[in-house]
Structure formats: structure tokens, C-alpha cells
């Protein structure tokens, strides 16, 4: 009868991902590529916002987009109409992207000559917050119909983001969304976050987001 042994591993799976993410960020720095990770619930307006933002920035920056989706190509087709380079990443049931998948996505996209790469993450406010993708900055979209209490329900997501877009402000009159209360809740969790109310449908407010993105990209490249 053989003896049992216990071998300690004590390794955090999240930390392993964090290390991969740091390596990817360093690589992006060396190659002067800015990567934005864009997150939200399904249907909050990621693709619409990106389309608008690309229209505003495409004369100034070379842009590449990665669309993460379970298995459709609809979003990639929409983005390609702007003329930006785009790749559809089929996540096959995965509800988040980790640093390794993001790295593979960038390789698939081909980042030669790209200044700004944007990842449209899987629509989900829970686990994408736990997995660092290697992005330089994180942004999220909260849309008015989702309610102003989301920061209370998904605090981690609001804590890790650098920018929050509050989208669909055109439908504010039909919902009891308290913008001021929402901003206060978010700032309590994350005092440094920038909050930008937008309407991706009409383009209102998108300019402020595009400006922020442009400045951050240039800062990263120099």
C-alpha cells in the first residue's frame, strides 16, 4: 500500500491571470498600442457607442476592434461598416475574456500599425470585472433602462473602471433613473472614475468619450 502525500500548490488562479495581463500590457506598451476593454450588460449599447466613437476618431487614429460574442457575427459586421479593422472572437459559452484569450484575439486581429485596439467584452457585469484582460484602461456602459441601483448590485465592476458611460439618456423621461444618485453611488465606490452621460443613438456626449480615448492613447504612446 503506497503512502499518500499532500503537495501544496497555493496558487491563485486570478493571480496567474493578473500576471499574464501585466505581461500583455508591457508588450502593448512596447508596441505603442492602446487597448481599451469595454464592458456592460447585454444590449447596453457597446456596439452603437463604438460605431459613433470610431466615426469621430478614424481620421486621427488607426483603430482595431475585437468583438467577443457567443457565436454570432452581427456586431463585427456592424463595426466593419465604419471601415475599422475588426475580428469576431467566438467565446463559445464563456462569459468573460481573460488575458490569454485577449492576447490571442489581438494576434488574430493583427495589430501592425494599430494605435487603438478596443475589446467589446461579453455582456455581463460580474466576472469580466474579475479577469484583467491586459487592457490599458477599462470602460463600462450603464444604460438608463437598467436602473440607477446597478452600482450597489455590481460594486466590483464600477470599482475597476476608469470611465463610466451612462447611455440612452434620451429615454430618461420614461424611467425613474436618478442620474445624480447614480453618480454619487459610483463615486463612493470609485472617486477617480469619469462619468459621461451619452446618447449613442444620436451621438450626444460621445465626443467627450472620444476626446478622453484620444488623449489616453497619445499619452500611452509617448
Amino acid at each position: 500500500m503506497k503512502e499518500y502525500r499532500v503537495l501544496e500548490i497555493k496558487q491563485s488562479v486570478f493571480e496567474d491571470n493578473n500576471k499574464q495581463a501585466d505581461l500583455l500590457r508591457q508588450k502593448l506598451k512596447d508596441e505603442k498600442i492602446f487597448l481599451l476593454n469595454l464592458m456592460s450588460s447585454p444590449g447596453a449599447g457597446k456596439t452603437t457607442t463604438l460605431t459613433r466613437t470610431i466615426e469621430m476618431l478614424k481620421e486621427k487614429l488607426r483603430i482595431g476592434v475585437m468583438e467577443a460574442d457567443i457565436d454570432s457575427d452581427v456586431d463585427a459586421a456592424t463595426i466593419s461598416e465604419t471601415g475599422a479593422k475588426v475580428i469576431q472572437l467566438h467565446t463559445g459559452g464563456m462569459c468573460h475574456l481573460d488575458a490569454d484569450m485577449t492576447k490571442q484575439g489581438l494576434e488574430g486581429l493583427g495589430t501592425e500599425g494599430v494605435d487603438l485596439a478596443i475589446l467589446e467584452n461579453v455582456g455581463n457585469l460580474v466576472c469580466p470585472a474579475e479577469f484583467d484582460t491586459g487592457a490599458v484602461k477599462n470602460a463600462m456602459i450603464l444604460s438608463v433602462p437598467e436602473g440607477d441601483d446597478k452600482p450597489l448590485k455590481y460594486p466590483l465592476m464600477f470599482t475597476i473602471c476608469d470611465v463610466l458611460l451612462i447611455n440612452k439618456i434620451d429615454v430618461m423621461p420614461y424611467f425613474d433613473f436618478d442620474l445624480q444618485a447614480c453618480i454619487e453611488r459610483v463615486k463612493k465606490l470609485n472617486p477617480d472614475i469619469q462619468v459621461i452621460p451619452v446618447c449613442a443613438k444620436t451621438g450626444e456626449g460621445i465626443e467627450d468619450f472620444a476626446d478622453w480615448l484620444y488623449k489616453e492613447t497619445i499619452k500611452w504612446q509617448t
Partner: protein
Amino acid sequence: MHELGVVMEVVRVVEEFVRENDVEEVDTVVLQVGELSSMIPKYIYDVYPAAVDGTMLEKTKLDIEIIPGNGRCGNCETIFSVLQNHATCPNCQSTQFELLSGREFYIKEIVCY
């Protein structure tokens, strides 16, 4: 459900460890999961057989230890279980607290021959 992808990552890490440490045969993989992590133990058990299928860890057992989600009150410093107290300090009712533990997801150890 994201457990499958994450557990496949666990399998990758353990396989590497097994190779590096010349382990002959693994009996059990032991994980530690924080109560407030997005990894749900029931789902981890459910996806484990699929994740180890065709790997060195096929036929191994899985054991999960739960790490409690504890917070320290920002007002009176009481330490309390975040889940049981609905994120409110049982002593002074403050909802401001610092999370001390509960989001972890560790590969703790392997039991092997």
C-alpha cells in the same frame, strides 16, 4: 456559466505542477473558493469531469474548501460575515466596510501517491 473555462485553466496549472514535481498519480485536487467569488462550488463540481476529460487528471477527485467572506466595519471595526449580515455591520448598521476575504480562488494542494 464561466466555471468550465476557469477550471480548464486550473487543470493546465496542476498538470504543469505535476510534471515539474515528478508526481506519479494524483488522487485529489483541492481548491479554495471565496464565498463572494463568482465561482460557484456546485458548478465547479459539475464541470470538473468535463474539464479533466482526456487530461492527466482524468479520474481524479475534487475537493473544495470555502473561504468565508468577511468585512471590517469602517465605522466601529467589527469584523462580520458579509453574506449573513447582508453587507451591513451587525453592531452599528453601517454599510461601509473593507472586505478582508472572500474573493479568492486558489489551487490549494494536490493529494497524490
